[in-house]
């Protein structure tokens, strides 16, 4: 196995945070992968001016799509493959095969589970009377503990397993994690959202009860229409009408 100096791995990790800096509709985060992997490619025979470096950098900057937090898995595995001189055609096939799973697993775990979970926890802290620093601190600390650890794990596992990294995606946290996080988020949301609404709306049990009652009816309607409407657009429309009404009356 190729051992990279700590400063190179640290540079790759830091660049991972900027993976999507050149995200575009042509290569998605392909150029980002090239950008992140570049410090490691300098260790190829011939260095930065060598043909191996140039060929590898070009190859790694082509189309790629993955969840940004799990892209480290691909970056690590591809780095190892390049440094071990794996045949280019095999690297290309591996890139193609890895992109889909890294996207869907990451979307499920992070965007559809971890982020909403951290949001409802922070909303709950607000509902319980948390200060601005307490609410924001709770959210950022909780969210980024998961975020930064996931990126670090991805890079480490990719570098250590190389092209055999696919089995790492069977990790229980990635497979069952979203389900458990969803249950916890739903439980907390049941308490947190009404508590926060109570604090925003002001004192009064009757008002809080009425708000929750009307909101539950609205949620049921929105749940029925879930694939056909976007809730935030409805909120925008209703709010625009309400503001207009309040101004002209």
């Amino acid at each position, binding site marked *: 196995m190729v051992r990279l100096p700590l400063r190179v791995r640290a540079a790759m990790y830091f660049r991972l945070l900027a993976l999507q800096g050149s*995200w575009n509709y042509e290569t998605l985060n392909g150029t980002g992968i090239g950008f992140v992997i570049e410090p490691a490619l300098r260790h190829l025979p011939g260095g930065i001016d060598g043909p191996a470096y140039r060929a590898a950098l070009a190859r790694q900057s082509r189309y790629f799509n993955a969840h940004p937090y799990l892209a480290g898995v691909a970056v690590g595995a591809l780095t190892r493959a390049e440094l071990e001189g794996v045949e280019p055609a095999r690297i290309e096939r591996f890139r193609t095969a890895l992109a889909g799973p890294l996207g869907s697993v990451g979307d499920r775990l992070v965007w559809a589970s971890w982020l909403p979970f951290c*949001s409802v926890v922070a909303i709950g802290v607000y509902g319980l009377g948390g200060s601005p620093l307490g609410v*924001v601190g709770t959210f950022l600390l909780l969210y980024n503990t998961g975020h930064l650890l996931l990126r670090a794990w991805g890079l480490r596992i990719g570098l250590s397993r190389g092209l055999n990294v696919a089995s790492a995606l069977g990790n229980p946290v990635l497979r069952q994690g979203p389900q458990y996080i969803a249950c916890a*988020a739903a439980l907390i949301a049941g308490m947190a959202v009404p508590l926060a609404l109570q604090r925003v709306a002001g004192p009064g049990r009757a*008002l809080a009860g009425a708000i929750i009652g009307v*909101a539950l009816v*609205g949620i049921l309607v929105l749940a029925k229409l879930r694939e056909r409407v976007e809730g935030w657009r409805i909120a925008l429309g209703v709010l625009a009408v309400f503001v207009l009404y309040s*101004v002209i009356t």
Partner: protein
Amino acid sequence: MNLLQALPIAMLGGLLGLDVVSFPQAMISRPIVAATVAGAFIGHSNAGLLIGVVLEMIALDTLPFGASRYPEWGSAGVVGGVLFAMQPLGSRGALPASILAALLTASISGWSMVVLRRIIASRLERARDRIEEGSRNALISLHLTGMSMDLLRGALVTLVAMIIFAPIVKAIVAVWGSDSAPSRAVVVVLAAVVAGGALWKVYHSVRHIVWFFLAGLIAWTLLLVRP
């Protein structure tokens, strides 16, 4: 609000807008953070937090999946936070008007991200031959230019939104006709409906999820009816 007053806020909007996609995606761009920081920026963090919580509930409906188009909450959170915190404490209509401005900003800013991605793609097209030859400079230049343009995009959106919406929100608050309590109730109901619908959208396939939500709701009810 004049240009000189809006510039520092625009810089904050640019920084937090950068976090949405480009760097470092640490979710400092979520409205609960962005609006609170923006409120604190002008000395009213509690007001920023209040509108941030409402916007956060609405933002749950638009999670940033892959290449989908979604509102950009970093700059919008800053705009909403500053606009609400600028109004006198307890102003009727300040919350709905500021949220409306923030939602419009989020929508326009989301569109600006699409434009930016197209611009980066056209720059890539021009640099493609050099990148295909393995040019380090071409790749790094493309990447850093993309990030710089994203920073500028967020700052510009925030600046324009502040200049347009600050006088409008002030005028709305001045002529607001509805009572204060119903105004907040409308906002709160909307936020709750969107948040509930959003959580259902992402979690509906998880077994027994409704029971977990109901258990939480019962816990809240017990808190509410306690003597």
